[in-house]
């Protein structure tokens, strides 16, 4: 076993992995490697006997969450800050590890400060960021595709939005959609840039943009699918962080069509960086 520590949104996490897997993930996560003392530990092992076709489930007991999904199993202990993960074969190691990392970020970031993990695509142009978010099927992959050659795509799956003082920043993550070409993933490094706005994606027959009032903005953020709502204390921390972010940054409901006219529309609306 070998350990490597990566840092996500300010949380250093030690990954304890079989040597072959550690080498692969060290390369993939190279711009997220950290020498800070780990605050979380994730232990992974291959478990060939795990079934691949059983129904998925998730269960919460006090500070511990257990889950199973398609040959992946995990136990995350939020009091000990330790996760035990397994998958039936090594090809499922990265999915189960990233699932756990995202869950840790989802739970921990709102408690540590004004930060949230969003199910969204993060773009950077002219040194400033935009986040387009929404549940599966709302157009994140489409926006990432439309942005290629125009803006840097920091991630097309999960991003972190963080408030520090008066500034809200977009923080990249190493989480990418399963269908994202490896060439796209390798081009991107860890980054944190000032954020100009959050855009909740909605397919529409024409381009529309509506700036939302704070409560409506928080309701839109609740559709991001990355919300810690299974425990009342987590949900309260999430709401508090979401309220402060929504107060510090414009959040828009964006009706869009899947064409590059999107960028012209955002420029005309004066919300493009």
């Amino acid at each position: 076993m070998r350990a490597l520590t990566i840092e996500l949104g300010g949380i250093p996490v030690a990954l304890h992995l079989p040597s072959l897997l550690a080498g692969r993930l060290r390369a993939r996560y190279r711009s997220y490697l950290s020498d800070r003392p780990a605050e979380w530990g994730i232990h992974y092992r291959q478990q060939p006997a795990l079934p691949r076709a059983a129904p998925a489930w998730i269960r919460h007991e006090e500070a511990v969450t257990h889950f199973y999904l398609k040959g992946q199993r995990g136990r995350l202990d939020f009091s000990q800050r330790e996760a035990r993960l397994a998958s039936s074969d090594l090809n499922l190691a990265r999915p189960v590890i990233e699932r756990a990392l995202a869950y840790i970020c989802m739970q921990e970031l709102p408690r540590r400060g004004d930060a949230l993990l969003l199910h969204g695509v993060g773009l950077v142009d002219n040194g400033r960021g935009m986040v387009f978010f929404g549940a599966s099927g709302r157009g994140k992959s489409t926006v990432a595709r439309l942005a290629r050659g125009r803006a840097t795509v920091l991630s097309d799956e999960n991003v972190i939005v963080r408030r520090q003082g008066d500034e809200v920043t977009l923080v990249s993550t190493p989480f990418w959609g399963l269908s994202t070409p490896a060439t796209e993933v390798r081009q991107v490094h860890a980054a944190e840039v000032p954020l100009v706005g959050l855009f909740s994606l909605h397919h529409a027959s024409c381009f529309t943009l509506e700036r939302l009032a704070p409560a409506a903005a928080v309701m839109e953020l609740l559709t991001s699918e990355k919300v810690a709502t299974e425990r009342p204390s987590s949900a309260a921390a999430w709401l508090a962080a979401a309220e402060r972010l929504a107060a510090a940054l414009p959040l828009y409901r964006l009706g869009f069509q899947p064409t590059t006219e999107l960028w012209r529309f955002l420029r005309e609306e004066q919300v493009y960086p």
Partner: protein
Amino acid sequence: MSDRTGRPRPVQGIAAREIGGEAVLIDTRENVVRLLNHSASRIWALANGERTEREIAAQLALEFEVGAQEAEGSVRRFVDEMVAKKLLEWG
């Protein structure tokens, strides 16, 4: 069933926050989210287990400048709906 002399309060498992005068509720048991309008949000805030329906209605009448009867009707309907949805309970 209450004789309506109790003091309504949120059930355990609800996370709530008032944002810009509107309450966002997350029911962590069912993973359901609700957004209350301004007057409902105010009733929700007052229904904290320390006031009877009548006391909540009196406060609401004062703040929203409506008659006592109208306020009592609004509070009763809201509490009934929230109790039916298992978001409030009688204390």
